């Protein structure tokens, strides 16, 4: 099965997905589209991140976060989802853990949504279609690493 994964690099640069101690950052991917979840998953694992769990709607996302807390380093959150949308889910997660790192990933780029998410505590906002480089840069930024060229 062909994937767009990179082969493990044989160079000295550390993949962004690894913490200083060598263990991978654990990410919770929340999106109702199987395709997007797969796409984000591929991008993340290609850079060494670990997809700790996925959720198909906001409600499941909140539940999983609470279950796996404090072992989630980052959450990627879609906005348009059934049952509970991403903005509401973001709010719940921030209430539960004020240090949660949530990055919104959505096809909608409306200014008011971006503002609202950031005000509620999201650390960044990425607009689809996904560009691998951009996604990795932004995530690395959020996790406190400077991006490598």
């Amino acid at each position, binding site marked *: *099965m062909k994937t767009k994964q990179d082969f493990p690099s044989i160079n000295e640069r550390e993949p962004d997905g690894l913490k200083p101690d060598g263990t991978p950052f654990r990410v919770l991917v929340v999106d109702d589209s199987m395709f997007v979840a797969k796409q984000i998953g591929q991008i993340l694992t290609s850079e060494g991140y670990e997809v700790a769990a996925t959720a198909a709607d906001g409600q499941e996302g909140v539940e999983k976060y609470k279950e796996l807390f404090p072992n989630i380093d980052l959450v990627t959150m879609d906005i*348009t*989802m059934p049952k509970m949308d991403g903005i509401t889910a973001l709010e719940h997660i921030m209430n539960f853990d004020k240090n949660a790192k949530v990055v919104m990933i959505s096809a909608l780029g409306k200014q008011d949504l971006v503002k609202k998410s950031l005000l509620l505590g999201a650390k960044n906002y990425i607009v689809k279609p996904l560009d691998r480089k951009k996604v990795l840069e932004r995530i690395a930024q959020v996790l406190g690493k400077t991006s490598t060229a």
Partner: protein
Amino acid sequence: MRVEYINPFVEAAFNVLKEVLNTDIKRGELYLKSTTMPVLGVAALVGLAGDVEGRVMFDMTKQTALAVASTMNGEQLSSLDELAKATITELANMITAQAVTKLHDLGFRFDLTPPALFTGDNMEVSDHEVEALIVPMETPQGKIEINVAIRERA
């Protein structure tokens, strides 16, 4: 359909398709339709609300859907399975969302619903009392018809 709404949809379709398929896209002539429309085989439907009410439909043959999904996944999919369907649904979502974002910048308030995907043979779509704008897009994978049927909220 209000003339200000047309360009955002046409541009969004063009931009997103160009980016996810990584190829040249050609747009066909726009036209209007108001009768029961036969569906080519795979139709993704996104609902619209806000200043308007209605929906956007993305219509294509099964072959085109499979080819598009394969390209977007970077691997040849053999059948229209859950992954392929999710891919087409996401395509519809991205195009509609980008159009809605552009419209928002122009001052129009639109909201969209999560998309639904319909597959089958000999399907027809009838809208009661709404005229549809058809934007045909030509891709190497085949033709995709974007069918927008909306009307102003009184």
